[in-house]
């Protein structure tokens, strides 16, 4: 293998490069990215960086000289347009082409769009996925302004908390019965209380019918059966979708992401995938999953590099993510979907919520309780029974 092309210049891509070099790969590496920026870190974009000013140097995943030291040719600001697996050729939007021996698909996810269809002037709506998005949103977060967030997912709630802390008047709208319902089910109600206490207006179980531009700037938002809301700023945050458009017609098997085996190899032997875009078989849970979490992108990037170089190991992991909202540091390990057992234990400013299925502990949400989190992860890995877990782990100090 002489030339590896990594498509997607972000977390999974950078870690794939590191994984290749750490394993002694000395061939050529080209990093292709749609954004013109050097790879940067996304989690701060909805948290401290959004309020504290976006400092490119602090957000950078690696210092600028790292790419040269690692012998990486950068093709930034040049989205990949099409892939021809047969001749192993990648076409760029710019018209250029790259021939490769091995390819890493690491194009992550892009924001889902819903509200722009409802708005006569979609340019007034904000979204948040990239540094440029954060720049635009951050510039407009001024105390006293009114922000409406559509979608009570992690990013929507984090922005709501950041904006509220800055002194904006914030409303969050979500069609589900409680925030974070997709991941946490009913247990997401904990976040309603958190936000309400801090003065955020959380409106669940409703949606948006129309978003009309206001003459003086901003928009008027109408929800079914509800009073209208005037907003200076509107953030659409209804989730993300795997960025696979460029792979349509490539013949790679796609199904809510790039379908991979347990070792992160795609349906083509010399193409692997990693990060938000990869749907792989996680042997630890015995199911296929796709995970939009930071740690997953780091570890999959490294693992996929090994697979590309001929290693055959399965990528087995317990998904993990964190979210910071107001004073709550919430960390989640495992899976909460289709839980048939849930226990909620609330302490003074902490909480532990355990999720079980088929008599075993599968997931845990720990708020301001990092030590318990570590114990839960071990318990999930070891397949602790639900009865033992519920008796042992939930107690909040």
């Amino acid at each position, binding site marked *: 293998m002489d030339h590896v092309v990594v498509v997607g210049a972000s977390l999974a891509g950078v*870690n794939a490069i590191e994984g290749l070099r750490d394993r002694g790969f000395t061939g050529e590496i080209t990093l292709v990215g749609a954004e013109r920026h050097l790879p940067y*870190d996304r*989690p701060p974009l909805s948290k401290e960086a959004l309020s504290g000013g976006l400092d490119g140097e602090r957000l950078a995943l690696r210092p600028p000289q790292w790419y040269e030291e690692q012998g990486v040719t950068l093709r930034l600001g040049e989205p990949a347009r099409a892939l021809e697996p047969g001749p192993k050729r990648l076409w760029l939007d710019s018209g250029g082409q790259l021939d490769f021996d091995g390819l890493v698909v690491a194009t992550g996810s892009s924001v889902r769009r819903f509200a722009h269809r409802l708005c006569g002037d979609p340019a007034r709506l904000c979204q948040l996925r990239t540094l440029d998005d954060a720049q635009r949103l951050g510039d407009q977060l001024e105390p006293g302004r009114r922000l409406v967030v559509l979608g009570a997912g992690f990013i929507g709630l984090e922005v709501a908390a950041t904006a509220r802390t800055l002194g904006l008047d914030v409303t969050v709208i979500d069609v589900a019965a409680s925030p974070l319902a997709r991941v946490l089910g009913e247990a997401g109600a904990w976040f309603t209380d958190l936000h309400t206490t801090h003065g955020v207006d959380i409106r669940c179980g409703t949606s948006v019918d129309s978003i009309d531009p206001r003459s003086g700037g901003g928009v008027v938002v109408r929800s079914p059966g509800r009073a209208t809301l005037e907003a200076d700023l509107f953030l659409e945050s209804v989730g993300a979708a795997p960025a696979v458009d460029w792979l349509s017609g490539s013949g790679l098997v796609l199904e809510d992401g790039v379908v991979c085996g347990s070792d992160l190899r795609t349906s083509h032997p010399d193409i692997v995938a990693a990060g938000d875009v990869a749907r792989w078989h996680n042997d630890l849970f015995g199911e296929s999953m796709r995970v939009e979490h*930071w*740690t997953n992108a*780091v*570890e999959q990037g*490294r693992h996929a590099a090994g697979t590309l170089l001929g290693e055959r190991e399965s990528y087995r992991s317990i998904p*993990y993510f*964190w979210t910071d909202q107001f004073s709550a*540091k919430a*960390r989640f*390990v495992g899976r909460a979907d289709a839980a048939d057992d849930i226990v909620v234990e609330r302490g003074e400013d902490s909480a532990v919520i355990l999720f079980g299925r088929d008599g075993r502990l599968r997931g845990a949400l720990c708020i*301001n*309780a*990092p*030590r318990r*989190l*570590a114990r839960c*992860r*071990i318990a999930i890995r070891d397949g602790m029974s639900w009865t033992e877990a519920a008796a042992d782990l939930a107690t909040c*100090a």
Partner: protein
Amino acid sequence: MAIIVKFDPSKCQGYANCLIEAPEIWDFDEDDDVALLLQEVVPESLRAKAEASARGCPAHAIAVENQSDA
């Protein structure tokens, strides 16, 4: 060869990712919201875990070195 874990508490932002990756090496101060390094010199058998905790730290507060090149 043993390895050395270098931890910069001033960079730590309390994500607890390190503790998740390697509970043998890390503990956590829940009052101050900062990680605690339990052992700075770590045996070879814990290398993979030590490295995973360094990679997993979003704040770049952890570095791992070989004892001989330190």
